[in-house]
């Protein structure tokens, strides 16, 4: 469009919707892959109705010339194969007057969408598909989108060839034909949402989901045993790990429930194998008693919680940052442990790997709070760097006279003897114990062991990885996890207005880092806390552990709707008095 905003040339947002069997997810995945092959960055998220299989679905993509981590304020293109039950996606697909709604000829788009003032375009998708033997509308749609955004068809052809190989040459040919004729039907709209493609070849790009990234991070960190019980939205992490672990000599066991899975980890870890499980809120709730056992018995384990809407069964398929409280406070007794949170798809890899390193090194339990948004978003990212964080547990390797498993002193980490080491036999215990491991209810032993388990975590130097800090402003936005992405985007928008805010996003949520936070907040006079929870859990956490002279302000929004950059901008402008 003539007056199309400048930003559109570097980032385009596209939503594809359709009812059961229309194949919008397939089309979306292919588009993302093709964009990646063309050297673009991008993300794709999905949304679906309540049906177990089939039913209406939406693939939401953002393609850009720079790395993107969250959706934009609006979608540029909404393309529907049909409009059946499309209304349900209205809130997830904000449109503006610059947006274009494309649908089947003579199929009126729902008013809920046209109310936005977006323009509409009708295309005979069915008919175009029918012109090709075995043609499908979702392939036509792909061609239409490529033409609108000026994505060359060549990479898409390549994707079709590799993805449809097992369906045979006829399937490839008909898909290619549909794509080409879809692209030929956009008329004057061709290139109207042109993305500026650089001829520069991007370094090493990956197409990966947050769940897969966490799985890869686990394996890089040394995990060779996973026990788990399926749960949305963590299942893909497990499904990726089952065959991957086999390749590196590990194993995944499907346990009977989360009580079993977490305890299987404890057994495997006691034997010396770095172990991890992935679950979501309901599973984490079941595991808490035994996470406490891992803490008390000083047996390293890692639990990845891919958060979804809660409480109870909640909204299994949608994101929310509402398990912070249970992760921080959910264990009974005084049970110091690690809580970490990745803040992007790529960071799922780093943070999971770091969590394993820390749990192993500090002989404790780590909870990694990912969420549905990070876990199920598929993204084109730069290859995450290799980091040196591997297990590195302190082991008592040789027989030792008078070995004490829970010896106190030093940095609090006492070498662990593994079964098979002669002369070091001991019983690991969740009962409070003396340094030898023998159960004890003496006040002195309890105090000593409580100190030990706390000090080894508190005294560890977590380095700069503890948080992401950006900007210099006197007004800070403190956020965490997947909420960071819209906040960063808001910062970029504010910068173009000459406003610099400071972003602080802790990756390490427990143990808290008061000195580092104080340093990060130096010179700050006001702070907005941005999170996706109804109860403002992160806000209360900050108030409790990082009290400041100024008052924190809270921007807490429950799931399932993602936080949009412009919401953050508006909030900062009013609350930050800009």
């Amino acid at each position, binding site marked *: 469009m003539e007056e199309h905003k400048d930003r559109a040339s570097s980032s385009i947002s596209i939503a594809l919707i359709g009812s059961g069997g229309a194949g919008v997810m397939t089309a979306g995945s292919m588009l993302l892959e093709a964009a990646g092959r063309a050297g673009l960055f991008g993300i794709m998220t999905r949304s679906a109705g309540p049906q177990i299989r089939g039913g209406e679905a939406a693939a939401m993509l953002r393609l850009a010339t720079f790395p993107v981590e969250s959706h934009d304020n609006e979608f540029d293109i909404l393309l529907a194969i049909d409009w059946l039950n499309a209304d349900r996606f209205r809130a997830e697909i904000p449109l503006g007057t610059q947006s274009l709604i494309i649908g089947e000829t003579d199929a009126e788009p729902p008013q809920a969408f046209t109310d936005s003032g977006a323009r509409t375009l009708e295309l005979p998708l069915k008919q175009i598909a029918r012109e090709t033997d075995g043609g499908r509308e979702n392939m036509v749609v792909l061609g239409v989108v490529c033409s609108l955004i000026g994505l060359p068809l060549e990479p898409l052809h390549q994707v079709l060839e590799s993805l449809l190989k097992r369906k045979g040459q006829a399937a490839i040919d008909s898909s290619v034909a549909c794509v080409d004729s879809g692209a030929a039907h956009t008329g004057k709209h061709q290139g109207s949402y042109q993305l500026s493609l650089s001829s520069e070849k991007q370094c090493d790009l*990956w197409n990966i989901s947050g769940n897969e990234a966490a799985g890869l991070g686990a394996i890089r960190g040394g995990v060779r045993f996973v026990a788990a019980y399926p749960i949305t939205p963590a299942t893909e992490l497990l499904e990726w790990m089952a065959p991957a672990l086999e390749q590196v000599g590990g194993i995944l066991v499907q346990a009977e429930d989360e009580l079993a899975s977490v*305890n299987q980890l404890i057994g495997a870890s006691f034997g010396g194998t770095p172990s991890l499980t992935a679950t979501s809120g309901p599973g984490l709730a079941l595991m808490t008693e035994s996470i406490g056992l891992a803490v008390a018995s000083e047996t390293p384990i890692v639990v990845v919680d891919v958060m979804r809407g809660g409480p109870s069964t909640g909204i299994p398929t949608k994101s929310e940052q509402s398990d912070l409280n249970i992760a921080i406070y959910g264990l009974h007794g005084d049970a110091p442990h690690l809580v970490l949170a990745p803040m992007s798809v790529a960071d799922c890899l780093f943070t999971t790997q770091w969590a394993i390193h820390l749990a192993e090194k500090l002989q404790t339990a780590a909870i990694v709070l990912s969420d549905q948004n990070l876990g199920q978003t598929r993204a084109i990212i730069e290859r995450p760097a290799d980091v040196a964080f591997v297990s590195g547990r302190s082991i008592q390797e040789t027989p030792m006279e008078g070995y004490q498993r829970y010896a106190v002193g030093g940095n609090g980490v006492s070498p662990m003897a593994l*079964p098979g080491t002669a002369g070091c036999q001991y019983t690991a215990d969740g009962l409070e114990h003396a340094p030898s491991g023998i159960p004890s209810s003496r006040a002195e032993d309890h105090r000593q062991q409580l100190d030990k388990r706390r000090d080894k975590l508190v005294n560890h130097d977590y380095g700069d990885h503890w948080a992401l800090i950006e900007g210099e402003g006197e007004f800070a936005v403190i956020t965490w996890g997947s909420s960071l992405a819209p906040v960063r985007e808001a910062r970029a928008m504010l910068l173009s207005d000459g406003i610099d805010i400071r972003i602080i996003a802790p990756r390490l949520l427990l143990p808290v880092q008061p000195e580092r936070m104080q340093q990060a907040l130096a010179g700050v006079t006001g702070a907005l806390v941005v999170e996706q929870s109804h109860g403002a859990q992160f806000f209360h956490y900050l108030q409790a552990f990082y009290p400041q002279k100024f008052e924190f302000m809270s921007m807490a929004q429950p799931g399932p709707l993602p936080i949009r950059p412009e919401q953050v901008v508006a909030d900062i402008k009013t609350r930050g008095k800009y």
Partner: protein
Amino acid sequence: MDQTSTSTAALKPKDYKSDTKPVWCPGCGDFSVLSAFTKAMAAMQLDPERVVVISGIGCSSRIPAYLNVYGFHAVHGRALPVGIGLKITRPDLTVMVAGGDGDGFSIGGNHFMQACRRNVDMTYVVMDNQVYGMTKGQASPTTEPDWERGKLTPHGTRINPFYPLVIALASGANFIARASSNDPNGAARVITEAVQHPGFSFVQILSPCITFRPEQRDWKKIVHPAPVVATADPAVAARRLMTDDNFFIGTLFKGERVPFTPEFEPRAESAHELETAFRMSA
């Protein structure tokens, strides 16, 4: 394990005992079970450092610390999963799980069934006293329905007792036996057999709680050896269980069910190879 090794002197039962003094009431059946464990270990000449005994919570679950082997005293009801995770990743170890009837059949009941199904090569010993000893005398899943001295069930439980041997057989355990703490030598023989049999072995040991069920002192008069030898046929075992009075002592079933032994053969050169799946071929 090299059982014919002559380089070290033969280990005696006491070599498997730790210095820690049991917390049990004098006369508790669990003392004899402890002695059966050490006798069995000595009979097999197991290297103490290659044995792990894992338990949950209860009087009986205190047993690991009284042994001079590796141990894990886990939480109530979850000892079996701990044992499974350990044995799967460390097949070189002899893994034994021990505990009470409340621990194993009530709070841990599902793990019991699932462990039988999974049939990992390990031995599970339940010291059954038909009561919760540690929490001072409540009814357990194996308590008779008309036992009226349980403080939470003053009119008796009035619910059907749990039949561990039946459940074990139906769920897929590969070795099923009952022993009595009144005969530690016999119990030691059964434990030895259980450890040596491949797959998941289940041993119920009748072990009186003389404090909350003093009438169980009479068990020594009631128990009687099973008149027949163990069968490998689940159908035969099932028929025998139908006439079981809960006091037959001996090995009921030695099956040929295939144990769960996953392979650990790395196929990729390194974790790096896994990355190729994500790399965009531009």
